[in-house]
């Protein structure tokens, strides 16, 4: 239906404004999420809907409209109001034109069982998580998501995709100790199909980590060697992608990135790849540009950045297929990040090489102090442990850090890249990051949980 809807909107545009350049993106979405806390399901939701987005360039002016109505009246109103808006605006000098015809890089990963998953499927995964936690209090979510996308424009580009995703993410909570603070352990999994989710395995891991978090000690601020578990690495990669590899930020001088220079440790290879079998999402971006594999860091050498059509035109290059819906102000972003595995083995193997340092599960509430240096502050969460002589000695209270994410992965700073990648669900969105754990030479802890 989505392709037909996109074509119908384009026909309306052609009838009302034959000279307009226009593009239409139609997304039919079903999102269901089962949330649990205090070891029971307390929120359980589903919504289905269609979003039609029209962007139009008319008489040198550009406007965008969207609606979730798919009836004739709604679509007619969308076209008329977007034309009217475009005619009232100042000229758009930087209009980059529409994406020319070309095939999608991938039709997406689709799983019927995920798309049609009834609430009982998610509830059973939650039940397994809760049961496996062995009586510890639990909280988290299980999510299924399906989307059919179609894009068409007046330049002749027509692409479509269908994809599904599923995620489970939860904590087990050890009762508060003498200090009144609980110890939380976390486990999470992202996949393209709900059948891959294993609530029992996740609950078991989360509970074991929570129990290992008992009786934490406070450590003083300072620089520590760290082993970051995949969830923590995912945060580093996400902010690098948003701020560092954002083509607009690079063009404007707001990013540290200098493509072609050795800004990262030789152990680091990162790419954005919608065609990877583990990738979640379509094979084209919000402008209908195919999303091929995009090297961002190759053995420490900076690549990228990623572009949409406008930022590419500003930089004198081609779009890499990373326009995001509604991202005109922020610029392009990678959405399928993969940190490629290294020879470092498991988390335990990485820990074994650390003389004194910290094992960190999650980085939480991370915010950028300055986009150019990519100095970030945040806290550890869901488990941090002291490593001595290659052994995990004891749990540590959460720490605040203030650390440049670019420097953290800089030359000489990556002491190990794990061998097994994990799909980490992005907490605020529907995507995922694939990454192994990392051992880093230095991480700047600037305060304890107590101040």
């Amino acid at each position, binding site marked *: 239906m989505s392709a037909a809807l996109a074509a119908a909107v384009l026909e309306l545009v052609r009838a009302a404004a034959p000279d307009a350049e226009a593009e239409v993106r139609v997304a039919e979405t079903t999102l269901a999420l089962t949330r649990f806390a205090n070891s029971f399901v307390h929120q359980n939701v589903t919504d289905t809907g269609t979003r039609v987005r029209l962007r139009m360039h008319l008489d040198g002016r550009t406007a965008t409209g969207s609606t979730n109505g798919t009836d004739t009246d709604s679509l007619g109103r969308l076209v008329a109001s977007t034309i009217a808006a475009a005619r*009232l605006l100042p000229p758009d000098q930087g209009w980059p034109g529409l994406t020319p015809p070309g095939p999608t890089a991938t039709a997406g990963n689709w799983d019927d069982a995920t798309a049609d998953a009834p609430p009982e499927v998610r509830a059973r995964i939650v039940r397994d998580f809760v049961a496996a936690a062995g009586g510890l209090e639990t909280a988290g979510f299980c999510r299924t998501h399906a989307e059919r996308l179609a894009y068409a424009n007046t330049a002749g580009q027509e692409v479509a995709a269908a994809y599904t995703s599923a995620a489970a993410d939860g904590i087990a909570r050890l009762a508060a100790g003498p200090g009144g603070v609980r110890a939380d352990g976390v486990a999470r999994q992202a996949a393209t199909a709900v059948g891959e989710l294993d609530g029992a395995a996740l609950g078991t891991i989360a509970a074991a980590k929570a129990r290992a978090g008992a009786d934490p000690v406070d450590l003083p601020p300072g620089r520590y060697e760290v082993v970051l578990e995949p969830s923590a690495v995912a945060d580093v990669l996400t902010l690098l992608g948003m701020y560092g590899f954002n083509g607009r930020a690079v063009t404007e001088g707001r990013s540290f990135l200098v493509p072609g220079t050795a800004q990262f440790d030789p152990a680091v290879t990162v790419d954005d790849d919608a065609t990877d079998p583990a990738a979640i999402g379509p094979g084209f971006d919000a402008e209908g540009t195919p999303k091929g594999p995009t090297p961002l860091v190759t053995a420490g050498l900076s690549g990228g950045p990623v572009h949409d059509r406008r930022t590419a035109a500003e930089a004198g290059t081609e779009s890499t297929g990373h326009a995001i819906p509604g991202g005109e102000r922020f610029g392009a972003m990678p959405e399928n990040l993969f940190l490629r595995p290294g020879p470092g083995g498991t988390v335990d193997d990485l820990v074994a090489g650390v003389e004194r340092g910290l094992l960190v599960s999650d980085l939480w509430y991370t915010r950028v102090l300055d986009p150019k240096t990519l100095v970030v502050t945040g806290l550890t969460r869901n488990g941090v442990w002291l490593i001595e002589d290659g052994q995990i000695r004891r749990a540590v209270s959460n720490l605040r850090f203030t650390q440049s994410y670019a420097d953290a992965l800089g030359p000489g700073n990556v002491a190990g890249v794990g061998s097994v990648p994990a799909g980490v669900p992005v907490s605020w969105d529907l995507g995922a990051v694939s990454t192994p754990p990392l051992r880093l030479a230095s991480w700047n802890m600037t305060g304890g*949980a107590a*101040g």
Partner: protein
Amino acid sequence: MTEFDAAGAAVQAALDAGARYADARVMSRRYEGMSARNGEVEDLTQSEESGLGVRALVGSSWGFAAVPDLTDAAARDAGARAAAIAKASALVPGPAADLLPVDVRTGSWGNPVQIDALSVPLSDKGDLLVAVTSTMREHGADIALASYEIWDTRKWFVSSEGHRIDQHLRECGAGMNSTAIGEHETQRRSYPGIRGQFGTSGWELVEQIDLPGNAARIAEESRALLTAPQCPAGETTLILGGEQMALQIHESVGHAVELDRILGWEAAFAGTSWLDLSRLGSLRFGSELMTITADPTLPGALGSFGYDDEGTPAAPHDIVRDGVWTGVLAGRDSATVAGLPYAGAVRADGYARLPMVRMTNVGLLPGTDSLEDMIAATDEGVYMDTNRSWSIDDRRLNFQFGCEIGWEVTRGRRGRMLRNPTYTGISPRFWGAMDMLGNPAEWVFWGTPNCGKGQPGQIGHTGHPSVPARFTGVRVGVTG
């Protein structure tokens, strides 16, 4: 079929499918946002969405379903599905759930506006943004941005208890910022705040904040910051401007007093709270100067409404009174669990999202001092304003906030401009060190249009009345 009819059909279908309580919201929202960059309009987006969300309570388990169609059949299907989802929730059951008894309400509410923001010609709005970004470029900005946003929302609420309420909220706001790019870092100045200023208001709010009158100043300040001395590290007296105080209230008080967090319902994502319900009414949250209310009746503030999304009429109540923790933000279900007699702070971000506990207008009542009084009374310290970064732990206890600009304060005078000012603290210790508070003339209802919470994610609009304030013994100047 009217919107009330659709909501009623959904509620009835949920009851028919076994629910013992159900409510439904039909919501219709128009949005318009425009941004300009360096003297050119870069984006205009207009959107509209409407649909119905229905919530069903079966036994002690909840279900929620949303659809964009307002036909009788679609509404009934959504109601039945919400009940079916609630039954699935019972596979992992919890304790008995109930709703705080309330008076059943019927009514209408809408906030007044002087100038309907959607009716202001796009060309006028575009000219404003182009002009201020051009001015900023002329005065030193490497990147000059300006934007406005407008929301026009209508809601129709029906519950199985007999509620029947419609509301019309009109919100808007605008802001601008200048970024200067140096060799090693960037510096930014924003006006009126990090995202602008927003309220339940018409376009008159945008006219009042006077973007043109401040464009040159913030551009020059952003340029000057590149060569200003770094904010020194150490412990000192800290004076915060009103905009940064709004952020301080939002993050370290507003979220901490959300009852769903306190009860553990957000434990895995947004987090919990350091507050323990057993100490409600006795815990010292801050100094005696600290009185914070949650007041959704404040005219023009962004967190104002007539009824929340459970049909509870807007009413103010204390959160902190004279430094003692006295209240929470609650919904009908969480209030029942906690044994509290009030709710009224539940809202949903659109028809497709579950109503949940959200801040209303959580803010400080003013004191008797002024910003100038604070500077004059400070022998050595730092004055900071306009939020730049914010991070706080999952218990809302340990925070580190950065501001766009700071100034030395020495022997009662404002001195040199300082770049990269940050401060850090532990919430009750920090609030306990507040010793001066701005007066009613400095009281501003700051609006935050981007408060994220929930899974699936929801964006909330919250208000934060605040004034400048002074704190002693604060750690400043944390850098990476």
